[in-house]
Each structure stands twice: as structure tokens, then as C-alpha cells.
């Protein structure tokens, strides 16, 4: 225990004195803080509608000057005069429509890219859409369909002598809803749940690799020779892993703190309230802390042991790939299953030690889970952390002084079985 404390202090000092750790922490904190200041200098919707109105005339002047550069052209062939041109202009704003006398003319304008898109209107509920290259975010059909619908409604009101505004007010009746979620609100929980799962995934992969690199480095510069004869390999591995965990929590805490602190300062400039997404219930925060830390420790021991299997940094990827693959699989399964949070896959994953860190956390945040299930899963996870620590320590001990070609994990495990 005494040597564990010594190793923990030494390894922590390594982190906190490391230039790369200090610089990366400060740099990320700075970037996060600066990002939150951006709306002060770049207008968003909420930030200043008034400003927009004030500067509106200036903008218009600019638009006038650069009209040809800004304006988009579209082609329209409407033989039956179905489309209400007033509505069309309202919906498409700056877009100018070239009125064609045939469908071929529309096609020709689109094909020559003189028009961004073209519409051939056949009836109130039927039109053809032409586009040369369709973009990822092409919404033209949605907008034009709405124009068509509105045109039809307007025509109907005219034919039936109805007040158009009354008709539309009824059509789009504003219903006031007071939502009262007594259980869990998956919609609002989804965002932070998603973010936190990605966060744990990134922490495990990044810091797990750092721990593995540290172990391989000691093997590579041969300091391990004198270390394993000065203390137990289990104490060495536990010291390294816990130091890594503390350094990680500290760094992530600082980054998160700078992000939120800076957001608080600039809150009024943001067009939407990030706080609504970060309003995480305390039970979810606790579950995240318990399962996130447990999962990190579980994988950190695995990474440490895998780092001991190779003697050169360049071989580390081969060895650490096993853990990497496992983390990736768990990550994808959890994210895919977020929409089916109470499904069998999530239930099974929430009890397996290598996946419970994200699956059980997600179930706590978004699904229906009994307290006993959470407790059982946490017990399994932390018991597995201890077992993984002991196995990791043994692999570490057996592999640290074996140089040369990378040792296969299966060979190391067989060796352990034999020695027992």
C-alpha cells in the first residue's frame, strides 16, 4: 500500500509536470472558452434581433450591390396558372423564377445550370422537379410542396368565398401544451446521454492508450528492469492506472469547467439555451460517475497489461488493438440501441463489465431500470475491475522482462494459467 502511494504520487507528478499534458489542457480549455465567446462577435438569432433591424438597411444596400452574385435562379413551367406567385416569392425569398413555356425549356435551363432547379406544375397535387446535381441538404421540394398546398388552400377559399386568414388560423390552430413528464424524458435526455457516452468512449481510448504507452516506454527504456525488482508489479500497474484516472478526471473537469464557465459569461449572446441540455438529473450524474470511472478503470488495467506485451512503441497498436476493438464495438452498440433503450441488447450489455459503463448509464438516463439492477451492475463492474487489475498485474509481471517480438495476449494468458 505504501509503495502504491509512492507510485501514485510519482506518476501523478509525471502527468502534472509533463509539458504535453499542461499544454494540451490549457490549449483545449482556451479553445473551449473562446468558442463560447463567439456569439458575442458573430450574431445569432437571439443575440440581437434589434441589431439586425438596425443594420438591416445597410445589409439591403449590400444585397443590392451584389445582387447578381447573390440571386439564385429557378425555372417554372405552370401551364394552368396553379401556383400563386405571391406565395412563391414569399417562400423562396431571394430566388428569382424564370417562367418557361414548356417542360423542355425547364429541363434545358436546369441542364445548362442556368437555373438551380426547375418545376413543371401539372395540377394542385402534381408537379415534376428537375435538378442537375442534388445536394445533401436540398429542401426545394419540401418548400415548393408547401407553396402548392398553400396555393390550393387559397384557391379553395376564393372559390368558396371563405376568409383566407380565418381558414388558415383554424388550420394552424396554436394549441398550448404544458408537458409534465413524471418519468424520464428520453427526448431531452438523449442529447446529454449521447454526449456523455462519446465522452467516456474518448476518455477510455485516449487515456487508455496513454497508460499503455507509459508501460511500453518503461519497458523500452529498460527502467522496468529496476522497477519490478523494487516493488510489486501489481502496485506498479495500480499506481499507474489510478494516476491516469485522477489526471484524466482533473483534465476533463478543467475542460468542462472552462466550457461551462465561459458559457455562463456569454449566456445572453447564445441563440439557444445550452443549459436546457445540461440540466442533468442528479441520479444520472451519479450513474455516469460510478459507471464512467468503473469502465475507465476496467479498460485502463486492460490497456496497461496490453502495453506490457510489447517492447517497442511502434508495436503498441498491434497489442492495444484488442481493447480498442472492444471499446469501439460497445460504443456502436450503445449508440445504435439508444433508440431501443429497454431492448434485450441494452439489458444484456448493461450487466457485462466491458459494456455496462455506457449501457447501464444510458438505461439510467433514458430507460426503465430498477435500483437492484443498477446496484448489481455496479457490483459486477467493480468486481471485474479488481479481477482485471489482478490479471493485468500478473500479465504485466510476466511480460515486462520479456523483450523482442510482441507477446500474444493468448500466450500471456496461457502462461498465467500454467504458472498457477
Amino acid at each position: 500500500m505504501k509503495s502504491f502511494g509512492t507510485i501514485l504520487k510519482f506518476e501523478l507528478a509525471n502527468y502534472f509536470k509533463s509539458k504535453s499534458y499542461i499544454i494540451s489542457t490549457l490549449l483545449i480549455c482556451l479553445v473551449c472558452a473562446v468558442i463560447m465567446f463567439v456569439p458575442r462577435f458573430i450574431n445569432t438569432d437571439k443575440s440581437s434581433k434589434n441589431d439586425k433591424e438596425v443594420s438591416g438597411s445597410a445589409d439591403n444596400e449590400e444585397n443590392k450591390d451584389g445582387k447578381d452574385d447573390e440571386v439564385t435562379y429557378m425555372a417554372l413551367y405552370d401551364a394552368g396558372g396553379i401556383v400563386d406567385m405571391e406565395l412563391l416569392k414569399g417562400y423562396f425569398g431571394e430566388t428569382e423564377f424564370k417562367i418557361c413555356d414548356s417542360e423542355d425549356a425547364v429541363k434545358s435551363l436546369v441542364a445548362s445550370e442556368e437555373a438551380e432547379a426547375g418545376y413543371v406544375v401539372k395540377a394542385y397535387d402534381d408537379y415534376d422537379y428537375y435538378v442537375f446535381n442534388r445536394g445533401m441538404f436540398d429542401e426545394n421540394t419540401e418548400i415548393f410542396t408547401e407553396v402548392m398546398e398553400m396555393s390550393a388552400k387559397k384557391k379553395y377559399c376564393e372559390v368558396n368565398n371563405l376568409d383566407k386568414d380565418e381558414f388558415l388560423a383554424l388550420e394552424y390552430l396554436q394549441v398550448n401544451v404544458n408537458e409534465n413528464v413524471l418519468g424520464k424524458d428520453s427526448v431531452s435526455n438523449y442529447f446529454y446521454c449521447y454526449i456523455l457516452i462519446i465522452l467516456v468512449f474518448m476518455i477510455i481510448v485516449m487515456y487508455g492508450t496513454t497508460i499503455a504507452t507509459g508501460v511500453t516506454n518503461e519497458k523500452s527504456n529498460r527502467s522496468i528492469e529496476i522497477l519490478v525488482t523494487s516493488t510489486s508489479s501489481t502496485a506498479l500497474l495500480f499506481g499507474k492506472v489510478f494516476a491516469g484516472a485522477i489526471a484524466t478526471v482533473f483534465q476533463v473537469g478543467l475542460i468542462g469547467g472552462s466550457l461551462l464557465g465561459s458559457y455562463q459569461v456569454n449566456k445572453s449572446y447564445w441563440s439557444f439555451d445550452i443549459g436546457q441540455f445540461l440540466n442533468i438529473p442528479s441520479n444520472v450524474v451519479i450513474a455516469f460517475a460510478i459507471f464512467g470511472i468503473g469502465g475507465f478503470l476496467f479498460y485502463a488495467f486492460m490497456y496497461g497489461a496490453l502495453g506490457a506485451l510489447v517492447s517497442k512503441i511502434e508495436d503498441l497498436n498491434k497489442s492495444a488493438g484488442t481493447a480498442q476493438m472492444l471499446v469501439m464495438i460497445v460504443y456502436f452498440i450503445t449508440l445504435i440501441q439508444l433508440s431501443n433503450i429497454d431492448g434485450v441488447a441494452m439489458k444484456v450489455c448493461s450487466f457485462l463489465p466491458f459494456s455496462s459503463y455506457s449501457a447501464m448509464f444510458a438505461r439510467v438516463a433514458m430507460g426503465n431500470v430498477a435500483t437492484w439492477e443498477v446496484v448489481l451492475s455496479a457490483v459486477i463492474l467493480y468486481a471485474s475491475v479488481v479481477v482485471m487489475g489482478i490479471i493485468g498485474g500478473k500479465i504485466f509481471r510476466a511480460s515486462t522482462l520479456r523483450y523482442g517480438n510482441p507477446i500474444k495476449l493468448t500466450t500471456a494468458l496461457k502462461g498465467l494459467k500454467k504458472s498457477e
Partner: protein
Amino acid sequence: MELKLTNIKKSFEDKEILHGIGFSVQSGRALGLLGRNGAGKTTTIRIIMDVFRANEGEITLDGEKFVPKSSQIGYLPEERGLYPKKTVTEQMVYLAMLRGKNKKEALESTKKWLKKLDVIEYETRKLDTLSKGNQQKVQLAATLVGEPQIVILDEPFSGLDPVNAQILKDVIRELIAEGRIVIFSSHQMSYVEEFCEDIVIIDHGDVVLSGNLDEIKTEYGKGRRIVCANNLTLNELKGICENRLSDKVTVHDVNKHYVILNIKDGVNQWQILDAFRENNVDIKTFGAYEPALNDIFVARVGEEEAEDENENKDEEQPKKKGLFGRKN
């Protein structure tokens, strides 16, 4: 204190590396652990330090099962390695604390060994800024910083110039004089002869020779004489021995200064001297042969090689016994 290894066997992946070796070493004495590369020396050392577990056999300290504590053993590995980017003091204090010292004791011990090894001026320097020789001395200081009772030194002199080697020699003599157990592994036989009362030669995972170095030398030189003449070159003298004295002696070897003779059974040295005189050999030196450790090592390990080759050629042939037999 007596550290004793008995019938130690060790296998890696179904290949037996040590076939049941055994030897002992007392406090206040240095043991030379010798062997060719891959003979099993480092594996033996790691078993003593409990880095590897033996498949069979036991290690005892004063008759009790030996479970090494980090504070008991100081190990200077052949593969040198400390933290290149840490200061000398920082890493030595860390190692001393790992071996059970508190911070104050660790600092005192660090300063003591850095002073003794004449590297105290580098205490605040990062290791990778020191010369190879000074790094080597820091490595030795790191070995001794926990004040261990058992000191295992693997090739301690490699990379040291004569001045630094002398500093190291003085420190090793002091360790022995203080009553510590010193196990000294080296291919530089002259250093082993200088420090070690006892030797163990391991070859292919077996102890092929062990015991008190003086006794081994006496035993190895028994029945042998050295001779050189004023009126003949060594090669001429060798020719006379082989052609005219073949009923009395055989030529064992010719080194830089002497012809080394094996005296045949029933022949005494006066008869040999008479024979030389009869052949007009003007004897300059004629005396007892005390072999160098290097000669003994080459002879023993070479003998084992020859045995192995013979065994491979003809497995039916009976096994030749070594000079002292195998000791387990």
C-alpha cells in the same frame, strides 16, 4: 547470512531453461556467476529476485524460505535503464521510497551513494544530459540506494573508463567488507578474479563448475607445470616436449609466456627436469601452474560444448565426466 539455491528448474513455453541448478553464497563474500550468453544467468538472477517463479526447487536465506523484499535486494541489470527525462535525485529518491525508505532516509541515502560514486554534482541534472559513464554510476547508485543486504551486479564495469572502474571497484570492496552478499555476473573474468571468493559457471541451464575460486584454480592446476627456456622459443620448446618427452608429459597449452604441461601418471618433476637437461634445454622457469579464470571458463564451457557435440554424434557413447563433475 547464506543464500542458497537448490535444484532450481525453469521453463518458458515448454522449453526448459534451467535444469535444476544449485549454489550458495555467504554474506561478506562475492560470488561470480559466470556463463556464456543465454546460459541462464539472468533467468537465475530474476528467480532470486522473484521476478520469475521457478517451476521447481527452492531458495533459502539462512535455512528459511526466501521471499525477497524490495528493501533486501539491489539489482544492477545488464540492460541499464532509468528515466532519461527525470533528474538524478528525483528518480533515486523514488526508487529508495519504493524500497521502503521514507523521504528523509531516501534523500540521505541518495546523497550518500552519489557522493561515493563521485556524481553528487549531477544530482539536479536530468539523466539523459550525463555522459555514459556517469549514467552508469548513477545506475549503480540507484541499485544501492535502498541499502540492500543482497547486491546483484550484472556486468557492472561495462562502459566504464579505468578511473571510473576504480571508483566502482572501491565501492564493491566496501559492500563486501560491510558483510553484504554480492552476486557478480560478468564476462570480464579479471574483475571476477579480483572480487569473488566463489564462482559458479552455468552452461545450457546446468551448473558445470562451482566452488571456491582458489581451490578450483589449485585443483585445475594440479598435475600441470609451466616451463620456459633461455635458449629456445616457446614453439621449439613445445616441439621438444611433444617429440622427446612424450613418455613423461603432454602439452596442455602454450600461452604468451610459458608452455603448459600435463605430467603423466607416475612421473615426478625431477624426472622431467632431468629429461630437459638431457635435451640441452636451458630452463628459465619451471613451476606450478595457476590457471587464469578465463582459461578455466573456456576449458569448462568448451568441454561442455564438446560433450554436447559428442552426444549428438553418438548417443550410445558413455558421457564424459567433467573435472569436478556437475554440481546441483
